[in-house]
């Protein structure tokens, strides 16, 4: 007699999926749908009067030159942070992967910044670079360079890029290190026997084999710069000077929470959501093809 376990009925599989589905719906789809709905409304801060205005919030948004400026700022900021944090952490990971004394201590120290909350990271950097209080800032000014992030947008941008990069390096470092350690030694040894020098071995063997990790980190880093850097910007520059560091996500906050313009702010977050979804889709469609698993 055949003995087989058969789950008949359609309820059980759904029941088993339910917890995950519920979490996804409650914490992801529902708020996203709310944002879309809110973006069609004009409402006062207290929610006492509501007017349905179709796409007016979007029309106002795209007619606003500040919004395009903020897009440009975000582009500059995200490119700088992604490039710096990926390349620096790759460099650090390659160095940490070597046989060196105190390797584990070195690794532990590199992971620490990840445990620091973005706002705190921002404040730490602010203390070092604040023109009249910061130790580093005083040193820079003593050298005759007029360091002034309160008025010079480039200085302010440099400051938030440093803080955001520093914060993300640990995360990238961990993944790169794990990626490096999973590359079979035999492949590298074979290349060495063929006469390839370390630099060449890195670019022709290690880097391509690391590409799944790099790709994953690229996606994660872009999402990080778009959303998670808010705390750093808020504590370091408050979006200033003269909107020099107002990224898209900071503008959502400033218009919605400080300005009480929930409709306009919701429209911005919908645009931001579409942008990030689009960006991620492009990455998977085109860049992933070049990734060697």
């Amino acid at each position: 007699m055949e003995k087989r376990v058969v789950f008949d009925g359609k309820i059980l599989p759904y029941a088993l999926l339910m917890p995950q589905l519920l979490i996804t719906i409650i914490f992801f789809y529902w708020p996203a749908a709310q944002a879309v709905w809110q973006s069609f409304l004009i409402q006062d801060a207290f929610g006492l009067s509501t007017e349905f205005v179709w796409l007016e919030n979007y029309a106002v948004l795209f007619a606003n030159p500040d919004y395009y400026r903020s897009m440009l700022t975000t582009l500059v900021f995200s490119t700088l942070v992604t490039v710096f944090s990926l390349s620096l952490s790759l460099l650090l990971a390659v160095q940490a992967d070597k046989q060196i004394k105190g390797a584990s201590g070195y690794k532990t120290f590199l992971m620490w910044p990840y445990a620091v909350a973005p706002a705190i990271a921002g404040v730490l950097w602010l203390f070092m670079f604040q023109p009249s209080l910061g130790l580093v800032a005083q040193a820079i000014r003593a050298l005759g360079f007029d360091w002034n992030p309160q008025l010079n947008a480039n200085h302010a941008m440099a400051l938030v890029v440093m803080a955001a990069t520093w914060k993300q390096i640990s995360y990238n470092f961990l993944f790169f290190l794990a990626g490096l350690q999973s590359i079979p030694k035999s492949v590298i040894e074979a290349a060495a026997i063929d006469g390839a020098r370390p630099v060449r071995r890195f670019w022709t063997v290690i880097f391509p084999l690391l590409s799944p990790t790099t790709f994953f980190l690229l996606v994660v880093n872009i999402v990080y710069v778009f959303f998670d850097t808010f705390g750093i910007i808020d504590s370091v520059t408050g979006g200033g000077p003269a909107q020099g560091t107002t990224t898209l996500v900071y503008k959502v906050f400033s218009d919605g929470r400080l300005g009480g313009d929930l409709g306009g702010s919701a429209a911005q977050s919908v645009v931001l959501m579409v942008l990030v979804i689009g960006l991620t889709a492009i990455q998977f469609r085109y860049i992933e093809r070049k990734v060697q698993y």
Partner: protein
Amino acid sequence: MFNRRFVLAATAAAMMAATPAAAQVEIQWWHAMTGVNNDVVNKLAQDFNATQTEYRVVPVYKGSYPDTMNAGIAAFRAGNAPHILQVFEVGTATMMAARGAIKPVFQLMAEANEPFDPKAYLPAVAGYYSTSRGEMLSFPFNSSSAVMWYNKDAFRRAGLNPDVPPKTWPEVFEAAKKLRAAGFDKCGFSSAWITWLNLEQFSLWHNVPLASRANGIDGFDTELRFNSALHVRHLQNLIELQRDNTFSYSGRTNTGEGRFTSGECPIFLTSSGFYGNVKANAKFDWANAPMPYYPDAAGAPQNSTLGGASLWVMGGKPAAEYRGVAKFFAFLSQTDRQARLHTDSGYLPITLAAYEQVKASGFYRENPYLETPILQLNNKPPTENSRGLRLGNMVQMRDVWAEEIEAALAGQKSAQAALDAAVSRGNTMLRQFERTVSR
């Protein structure tokens, strides 16, 4: 079986024990006071709770002023607003416009038969929180004004007379140049709250409109006016003086105040509420003086305006709880209490009686610096331009104005272009505010 019975019994006992406390009506008070002033708030609640048994005021710290205001708004939307919400002065228009969300204080006091006389308050204070019909909508709590702080030791070093502070802007510029030459080469003078000092207070002090319709007090259909020749001239002066650090920018809020107490900036314009900090941290001989003015501006100096916060009562609560709030406000209004609030916290005395009492006690002879802001507020009877200001979206609008001033100071725009842009961007925000509240 035993277990269940035991649990039931324990629950019943716990409920009985909790009953006396539950009979007390709890009044939630959300505020933004830190440090010494947080202690003042807690002490007030404790004292009130000790005077009677019916109500219990529970103060809760909710973060910075904008955080507290947003927390209150979010709680209202979620249907569990606190009874009392401390809102800073720039949030006044937003709260006033939210008629359905608040309980006007004059109404609250009348319904509870508690004594309440708007005339008991300093006119500048009462006017700030009242409708044009003179109905007080919120309860003034902590008020300050802007003054000029200066470092007397630095003045001596630069050969300036420390007992005769500069009165006018040209005198401030001259003094700052001398101070710069005497070694204060990073900062001759500076200002915290760049827009509050150099646009808002500046307009009222010079009796020029910041905005039409009495700076917004007479209606939400107000338009900004601070791109006048006088405003442009002032910003132009700041731009020129910062080239050699005679003026140095200190940011949008008060985070730059440390530059005064550390001795870096010998002249610093900021809130009179800076008093406690200066007293505790400045290791030099200091003083304060009224804000400077341009002597050729007709009518200057006029009178200054308020900073600080008031207490708003949120709507939709049962009458019994409102009676408790009214009792608490009556308790806060007592002259002795107001006088002590003033001398403890360094904020202004907001009732005339409290001011007279403190004055009679001789307190100002030892602490003349606490009287400067009051003399400034009462300098002249307020005009249409100087009754106060009431603009919607003010929290974010200040940021927008500051952005334009920063652009001008960084050399990206001329003074005129920056103020024109600040006015036009601000007007867009005012129109949007008008639209959301006018229905």
